[in-house]
């Protein structure tokens, strides 16, 4: 896809000088974004048992789609919980956390972004972004617990006998959302079971919708509590796989009392896009350093912050 189709015809600041790739290896799904100076390619596969194989598969798909060869890729940045297990012999590689990447990704698409809610397979996060730089100002991440994450919704869908991608739509049909108070997915599950047991046969459809809505509101309350320190300054942006769930979007907007700004691409790719943006910066810094190196004695600091890998792990 042409970047101008997404962003408009103004020059896009994060555009890289050479093809770069960002991977977001999540707990459930893995995302890849390939950026060229004028195009963006995205791909998604379920995360496999071996992270490197998953990343290799993502890269193969992206190269095929972009009609590029492996050696055309100037830089790769990995993020997501599988980021550490990646290694490349032939491509420069850096690691950046998904918190920083979601901020960069959302900011690259919409420079007015100030607040991000990211809900993925096993994590949810609230991130406050500096609109001037796209940098993270503050963030809060959920506790080690599935409440308020994609996993919770997955469990709920199974219990209601629904496909995961239908759960949100069904919840929007609710007439009276069920009250599910448990903070814990295990207890919420038993609450759901007793609610289901109470549902009369002919009202099954309505009961399902009400329970589904209750589940979304329970999750959304959990996520909303993350916003305490981060705030809800607009533009408010929803990223991560759960951003595609209209039930969750509705529940969050209702509880927060504010609307999410519509995104120009599927926001499951926000983290991978952010990783690709970082890859572009690393590539630029490396090129600048190389040039400076051939022209003059090496300087201690290059111009950009991205050049400094002090916190990244060179795999």
């Amino acid at each position, binding site marked *: 896809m042409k970047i101008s189709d997404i962003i408009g015809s103004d020059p896009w600041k994060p555009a890289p000088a050479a093809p770069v790739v960002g991977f977001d290896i999540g707990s459930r799904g893995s995302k890849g974004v390939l950026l060229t100076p004028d195009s963006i390619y995205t791909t998604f596969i379920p995360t496999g048992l071996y992270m490197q194989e998953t990343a290799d598969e993502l890269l193969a798909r992206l190269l095929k789609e972009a009609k590029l060869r492996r050696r055309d890729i100037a830089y790769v940045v990995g993020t997501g*919980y599988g980021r550490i297990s990646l290694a490349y012999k032939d491509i420069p590689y850096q690691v950046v*956390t998904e*918190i*920083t990447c979601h901020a960069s990704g959302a900011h690259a698409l919409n420079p007015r972004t100030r607040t991000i809610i990211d809900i993925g397979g096993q*994590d949810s996060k609230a991130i406050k972004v500096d609109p001037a730089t796209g940098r993270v100002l*503050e963030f809060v991440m959920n506790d080690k617990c599935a409440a308020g994450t994609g996993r919770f919704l997955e469990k709920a869908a199974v219990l209601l006998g629904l496909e995961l991608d239908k759960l949100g739509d069904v919840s929007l049909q609710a007439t009276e959302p069920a009250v599910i108070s448990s903070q814990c997915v295990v207890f919420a599950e038993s609450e759901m079971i007793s609610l289901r047991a109470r549902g009369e046969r002919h009202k099954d459809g309505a009961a399902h919708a009400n329970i589904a809505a209750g589940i979304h509101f329970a999750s959304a309350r959990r996520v909303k509590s993350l916003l305490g320190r981060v705030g809800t300054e607009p533009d408010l942006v929803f990223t991560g796989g759960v951003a595609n769930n209209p039930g969750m979007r509705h529940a969050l907007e209702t509880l927060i009392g504010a609307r999410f700004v519509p995104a120009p691409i599927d926001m499951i790719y926000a983290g991978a896009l952010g990783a690709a943006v970082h890859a572009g910066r690393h590539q630029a810094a490396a090129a600048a350093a190389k040039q400076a190196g051939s022209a003059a004695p090496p300087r201690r600091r290059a111009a950009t*912050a991205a050049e400094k890998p*002090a*916190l990244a792990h060179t795999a």
Partner: protein
Amino acid sequence: MTNSLFSADLLPIHALIEAEQQAFIADEGGRKRAGYFCAYTPPEILNAAGLRHARLFKAGSPEIVSQGERYTQSVFCDFSKSCIGAFDKEGGDPFYHAVDKLYTFHTCASMKRAAEVIEQFVPTTLLNLPRLRNEAASRDFFRSEILHYRDDVAELVGRAVTDSEVSAQIALYNKVRRLLRDFSELRKRPNPPLTGLDFLELVRGFYYLPPATLLTAYEKLYQKLARTHDDGSRPIRLMISGSIMADGDRRLVELIEREIGARVVVEDHCTGYRPFAHTLREDGDPFAALADGYLDQAPCARMKPLDDSLDFSTGLAEEYGVDGVIYVYLKFCACYGVSKLEFLDRLTASGVPVLEISSDYSVSDIGQLKTRVEAFLEVLQGQRDDRIETNSKEHVHG
């Protein structure tokens, strides 16, 4: 030990600590052995009586936690569960089993209840610590509790503990506190010659080693570290603030220093720098000196007014020039868990970025912990880069 959690310079000290623990367990010399939990228990009295003694703060293993859970509800912190679990005759810790007498000036409710459970395993004397640290009545009361403590200790060893013996111990422990403070001072350098893990090991030594042994070993090390050459690196500087960081709970600092390469340069908790920030009066009534000295030490969050704790925390962050603070507390901690917002707000208001982490001794959350800490350090690195950029611009235009 190639994979030790501290620098090679500390190996002799680590060996001393291990040897002391073995001697404690093996009952070498046949001296009575006393243990205590909280940093408000003056070891001066124990040492004056010639006891072998140690602070009991080994924890971090999930097995010991579940051992303790047989006696508590789930909503006790993992540290208090570990204290019970380690004393439990089945599957506990041999070091704890070797304790002849437990003394505890309890701080929080969990530790008080834990001590009451532990009474069934070992003779225990539970003493009271006043909360209102600035009241004259608190000081008088605390002094009388310390006298009870002295009498109890005297009964244990079968001889009197004299005022002059106690005074001598106050002077000796002051010397040790000053030395630990000097070690910490070295961490104010832009490139500290000792890591946070090193300092934690030194504090560990404080709680296991006899002070005389400690002074000999530590003074030598101090001279060496003070001469360390600055190689020019400028790691990100962090303060850890919050609840106890047990002997055995190293995963956060290990992650920060070993995996990410930042530095913990000071701790606002009772197993780091905090107990050494203050020294005791050396003249006059030694028991009044102990009462005042321990109430005047940098306060635990259970003390009132909480403002004293908040002032200390923000002051320390500034004094050590930290880039950020990690506020970490044990889940269900009734002191640091409940006062977290006051700490977070005050630190943030003072201009220091702060990351909140609630922790326990399970191992399943290490991935999430890593993501949080790494992301926080990315934020701090970004801010530092911005500062450098602004400074260099000002430099060019100025």
